[in-house]
C-alpha cells in the first residue's frame, strides 16, 4: 500500500531534495527501511549504530506519535501519511 513519507527540512538534501516520498509499505518500519534503502545517506541521521531510531527522531502516522501506537510495527494503509519530525536537544558539557 503506498503511503506518503514527509521528509523534514534538514534531511531533504539526502532525499533528492524531496519534501515527501511515496513508498510501498505495510508498517512504519517497512516504510523507513524502504526510505533508507532508496536514500542511504538518511540512515545515519535516523538510526544510531545499534540500529535503533535515534531518540530525537519522532515518527507520526497521520497525527499520532508511533510511541503511543506499535512503534515501528504500527500498520499503515493507503492514504496514510508518515511524518518524520525532529525534536531538538543538546547542552553544555557536564
Amino acid at each position, binding site marked *: 500500500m503506498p503511503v506518503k513519507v514527509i521528509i523534514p527540512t*534538514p534531511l531533504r*538534501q539526502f532525499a533528492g531534495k524531496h519534501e515527501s516520498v511515496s513508498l510501498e509499505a505495510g508498517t512504519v518500519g517497512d516504510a523507513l527501511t524502504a526510505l533508507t534503502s532508496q536514500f542511504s545517506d538518511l540512515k545515519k541521521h535516523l538510526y544510531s549504530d545499534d540500529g535503533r531510531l535515534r531518540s530525537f527522531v519522532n515518527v507520526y502516522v497521520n497525527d499520532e506519535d508511533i510511541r503511543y501506537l506499535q512503534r515501528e510495527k504500527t500498520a499503515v494503509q493507503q492514504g496514510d501519511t508518515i511524518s518524520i519530525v*525532529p525534536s531538538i536537544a543538546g547542552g553544555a558539557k557536564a
Partner: protein
Amino acid sequence: MLILKQSLFEQIQAHGARDYPNECCGALLGDGGGTDRTVLGLVPLANQRDDSPSNRFEITSEDVRLAEKAASDKGWELIGWYHSHPDSPARPSDFDREHAWPWYSYIIFRVEKGEPREMRSWRLNDDRASYAEEGIEYIAGAPA
C-alpha cells in the same frame, strides 16, 4: 554566514540572561536559501529538560511543529535553533553533536554569571563527526 539583526541578537541574549543559570532555547526563523542565511524572527521556547536544565535543553517535536507553523505563516523557513551554555564555552559539546540535525544553524552563546558573552553559530557536518562554524554578521534593524 548567518545574518542576524541586532535587535534579534539582543533578544537572544536577554533570553539567556533571564533563564540563567539554566539553558535557554528557541527557534530561528528566516530565509534558508543560499549559502548565507538571514534570521528574520525568533520563537523563544521552554526548555523541557526540567531534570537538568543547567546543562541540558530539549525542544519537543510538538514545539518544533509550532515553530514550523510560525515560520510558514510568515512565508519563512525554520532555519535553526539557539541555546545558551551557562558558564561554558559557546561551542558544541559531544552531547550537542550526538543530538544535532544536519542543515540547521545552531547558535550557541555563553552566559557567564548571568551576563551574555560570545555567540557563535554552527552547522553539523554530514558525517556527524564534527561541525562547521559559520560566521555571524550583525546588521542593524528591528525584527521583520
